[in-house]
């Protein structure tokens, strides 16, 4: 008996954007292996940029020519549906922008193997150059970010999670200055990340035990037919939640975020704060809406507590931060809380589900671009020893460089959700979706959703306080005599800030087109 194996079908066309990114990453590794040292950067940068740009173009082509497919591809492993394509587009643009930041000189260590402060390090710095391996690593991370939210079964999702995380663990430790902090952040991120992915895996095991499969629609189907109160299901769900909530930085799994964001090289922080958050949010949505959609009356009360705690922790702790990157990290935690409000806004009716999904997608878009812009500005304010992280160093920046401080103030206002910035529409959309969900008859949470939105508004107000504090600090305090210098920005950095500012202003004044795109992406919901 020798049954003939049917060759697997892989829809290369549909998967082309992701495959292009991975392919370019492998090519980048080959460049590292064979190209002479002085040529590597010259080859890597265009290769990376072109592949990311090309992948984005492929996403566009796919959307325009064929529309989103309605079936999972690659033997049911990957679901390239509307939301996934939207998230891919956002991630690709963000990572393109981040590569421009990475490309800027002076962020990455010349030789990671050299002990900080040693003669070897000086020698390596004198020799110039740096680790061009960053580029393929970054491409692998981006590939993982694309796979993670598009995975259609939990195994693929786990692999995507690891593909995304491993390069990030590495890149966190490669800062050129303050290397002890950088290495520490790398180790913390790695240990905690590995710890949390063990939880993710255990959850997967339990769900596999419950449903006999790890594919998300399979689990959903089992839920529809099987006993809902099965302890295996509940444990599995909780453990899976731990892994996913860790990645988006929801409380009480948020502790790694400030430390890692502060220690990592700022371009990588920018990538983590934008791309990783977008990808992880997409994965959260997919797991909770597709895999556990029938269980919503069960997970939503728990998620309610998590969202509330996350917003409070993020907003309250940010107040007393003295480091700009830590403050942005806490702000990112608070924003994860706002996003979770959106995740909870699900209904029986797909029409309204699409509404809240589009709100979340829109929020992700506007938030991530503003974040990248803010971190790009952080890279420009420098002390002799590297970036001027301490907030006191930012005092009076408005007098030294009104334009830079002005743009940064604008980003902060967008984080705070002040009208006429993109952030306002993001919050507005998510809160509105949550309120609509709460007023839906038969909603299990009802008034609790309103309560959550009120809590969200209060948290925004608290958050606005510390954003405004920074603005006041920049514009209304006297600059220190030996204040930080403003680095002469490279074209790349300027482009990053310009793109971020453009999106923040543009969407703030003219939100409709982007809302339309998000709405279209969300129209058919996820492939089930």
């Amino acid at each position, binding site marked *: 008996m020798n049954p003939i194996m049917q060759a697997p079908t892989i829809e290369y066309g549909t998967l082309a954007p992701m495959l292009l990114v991975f392919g370019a990453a492998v090519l980048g590794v080959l460049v590292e292996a064979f190209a002479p040292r002085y040529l590597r950067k010259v080859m890597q940068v265009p290769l990376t940029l072109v592949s990311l740009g090309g992948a984005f173009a492929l996403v566009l082509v796919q959307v325009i020519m064929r529309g989103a497919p309605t079936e999972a591809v690659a033997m049911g492993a990957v679901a390239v549906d509307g939301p996934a394509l939207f998230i891919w587009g956002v991630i690709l643009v963000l990572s393109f922008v981040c590569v421009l930041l990475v490309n800027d000189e002076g962020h990455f260590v010349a030789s990671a193997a050299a002990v900080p402060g040693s003669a070897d390090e000086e020698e390596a710095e004198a020799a110039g150059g740096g680790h061009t391996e960053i580029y393929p690593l970054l491409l692998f991370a981006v590939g993982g970010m694309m796979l993670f939210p598009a995975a259609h079964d939990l195994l693929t999702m786990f692999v995507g999670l690891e593909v995304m995380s491993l390069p990030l663990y590495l890149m966190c430790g490669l800062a050129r200055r303050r290397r002890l902090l950088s290495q520490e952040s790398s180790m913390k991120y790695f240990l*905690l990340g590995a*710890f949390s992915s063990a939880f993710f895996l255990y959850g997967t095991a339990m769900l596999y035990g419950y449903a006999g499969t790890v594919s998300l629609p399979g689990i959903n189907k089992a839920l529809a037919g099987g006993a809902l109160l099965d302890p295996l299901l*509940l444990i599995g769900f909780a453990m899976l939640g731990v892994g996913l909530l860790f990645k988006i930085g929801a409380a009480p799994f948020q502790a790694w975020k400030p430390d890692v964001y502060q220690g990592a090289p700022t371009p990588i922080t920018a990538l983590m704060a934008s791309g990783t958050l977008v990808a992880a949010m997409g994965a959260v949505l997919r797991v909770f809406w597709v895999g556990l959609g029938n269980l919503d009356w069960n997970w939503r009360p728990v998620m309610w507590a998590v969202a509330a705690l996350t917003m409070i922790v993020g907003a309250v702790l940010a*107040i007393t931060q003295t480091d700009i990157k830590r403050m942005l990290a806490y702000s990112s935690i608070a924003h994860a809380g706002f996003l979770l409000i959106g995740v909870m806004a699900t209904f029986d009716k797909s029409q309204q589900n699409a509404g809240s999904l589009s709100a979340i997608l829109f929020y992700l878009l506007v938030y991530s671009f503003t974040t990248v812009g803010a971190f790009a500005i952080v890279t420009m304010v420098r002390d002799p020893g590297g970036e001027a992280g301490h907030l006191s160093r930012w005092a009076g920046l408005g007098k030294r460089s009104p334009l830079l401080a002005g743009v940064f103030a604008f980003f902060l206002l967008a984080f705070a959700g002040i009208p006429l910035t993109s952030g306002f529409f993001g919050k507005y959309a998510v809160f509105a979706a949550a309120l609509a969900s709460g007023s839906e008859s038969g909603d299990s949470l009802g008034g609790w959703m309103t309560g959550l939105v009120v809590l969200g508004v209060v948290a925004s107000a608290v958050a606005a*306080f510390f954003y405004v504090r920074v603005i006041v600090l920049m514009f209304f305090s006297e600059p220190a005599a030996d204040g930080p210098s403003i680095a002469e920005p490279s074209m790349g950095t300027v482009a990053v800030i310009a793109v971020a500012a453009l999106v923040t202003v543009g969407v703030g004044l003219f939100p409709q087109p982007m809302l339309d795109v998000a709405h279209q992406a969300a129209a058919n919901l996820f492939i089930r």
Partner: protein
Amino acid sequence: MESPVEIVQHTAGGVIGVSWLMIAFPLLGAAILLILGRKTDRWGHLLGVAMSLASFVVAVLAFFELLGLSAEQRRQAVHLYEFIPGMADMGLLIDPLSISFALLITGVGSLIHIYSIGYMSHDPDRRRFFSYLNLFVAAMLLLVLADNYLGLFIGWEGVGLASYLLIGFWQFKPSAAVAAKKAFVVNRVGDFGLLVGMFIMWSATGTFAFAELSEKAGGLSQPMVTAIGLLLLLGACGKSAQLPLQSWLLDAMEGPTPVSALIHAATMVTAGVYLVVRSGAFFFPEGSPQALAVAIVGAATLLAGAIIGCAKDDIKKGLAGSTMSQIGYMMLGAGLGPAGYAFAIGHLITHGFFKADMFLGAGSVMHGMNDEVDMRKYGALRKYMPITFVTFMVGYLAIIGFPLLSGYFTKDGIIETAVEHNQVLGWLAVIGAGITGFYMSRMIFMTFFGEKRWAEDAHPHESPTVMTVPLIILSIGSIFLGGYLILSNRLMLWLAPAVGRPEELPQFHFASTPGLATLALVAVGAAYAWMKYGRAEVPAVQPRGSFLTTFARRDLYGDALNESLFMRPGQWLTRIAVFFDNRGIDGVVNGLAAGIGGTSGRLRRIQTGFARTYALSILIGAALLTGALLLVGNI
């Protein structure tokens, strides 16, 4: 009195359909200059000028297209896009009022752009200067062209930002940085008024659009309208440097002179007048208390500005006082209802010309005198800078209301209408005109006549052509524009579709009682100035003046007043609050803030920096999550 005609939704193409290009051109210019940065150093200023000129061309074309339409058709709304879904749409309103402003902004703006090429030629950051100028033009155009208060507000804040950036352009000077900050803070007070006014407007009518407001405003209760009107007036006072928010304008002269000419004389400061006139039909009906408040503010400011102008030795600050005063006239006119609107706008336009002319003239003088601003160090410059002298003279004659020049017609119109409506305010305006005659003559005599009192290294010379040509163009406008607009009521008929008009068209009297009194007082003022500063020797050091002089020199104690009226009581209140807070009786807000801060300070200790602690929090979180789910699942 006839009310404005309805707004016509624009459907056809034509230039009006693409009038958004007016805003887009300078915005694009600013974006290119800011983004490309130093790369554009060589040609950046040319791009700035080109963008401003392009915008001017569009404005002129739109103007002629509007002119070709019948009076009922002259309010064209151009819908652009849905701004906040279900809340507000973004669109432009092209009507006689807005297009007049657009012409002024782009026209005078372009001239000042050209002038700045010469004026800023030695500044290494000239490109940045032009990018801010372009940004300003774009924001100002949005302010006047938007068809709703939201768009207006965006422009309003945009010009505030541009003004802040430009006042502080030479940020290395501490005085410039402080002045920029002061302008910023004072303007926030006004903006707050405008914003609250808009909130009330929104909650009462549910719309920001002018078109809908004109229908719905009639249904509002009287106190509501008064409240909105007064709040809008507060906004206007902030932007237009009217009492009690006038104090920033004098300090704003720290900016480069073209900025003073463009923003702080010709355009931005008149935004308050625009706001009042534009809202006139809804929120400032004739005879209402808020309209009276506008007139009173205007009259008070025109006197205060004139008095301040008398005592300043800094040529730019003198002009700034005069600007305050002239905008006071416009406000007075705007407070008189449709009868005064045309004169107020007319004065605004002619003032835009002659004041820009004089500011640029002052800049030209400074350019030749090593940036000296003290008039006591000038004298006898007429021989050395003939073109500047002649053009400045034209502006001077226009502003004091020399018969048949621009200012004569527009100012006299305001004064006569004011006397008709309110005797007291009208005669105050006449007195103000007399004082104007004194301080402007003083400026002329101190600068261009008398003996040389220069610093030793001064070598005055005429400015380059790129600077004098705008002066000449502006002075031509200063001569003829007023008569053209006011005689036979051209402007009033032109604006009627937008702002309404009185039933009876006013007749311009060349020999009315207030008019003759004005002329007489101006002559007395000029003669007194001649006695004190033309004939007599001007001391090079400021003499100790009387109480009144000191009063004027200190800007009427505006800053001291602010301090004692607002800052002190504010501090006092704070102290009381702290006192009560300490006693734990009041200060809920303070307590809350402190509470959050304290919680934050304590909570952040959880972030110990030990990875193992974090892992513990994850495990506890996981256990809680599992427990909670099992619990919820089993209930």
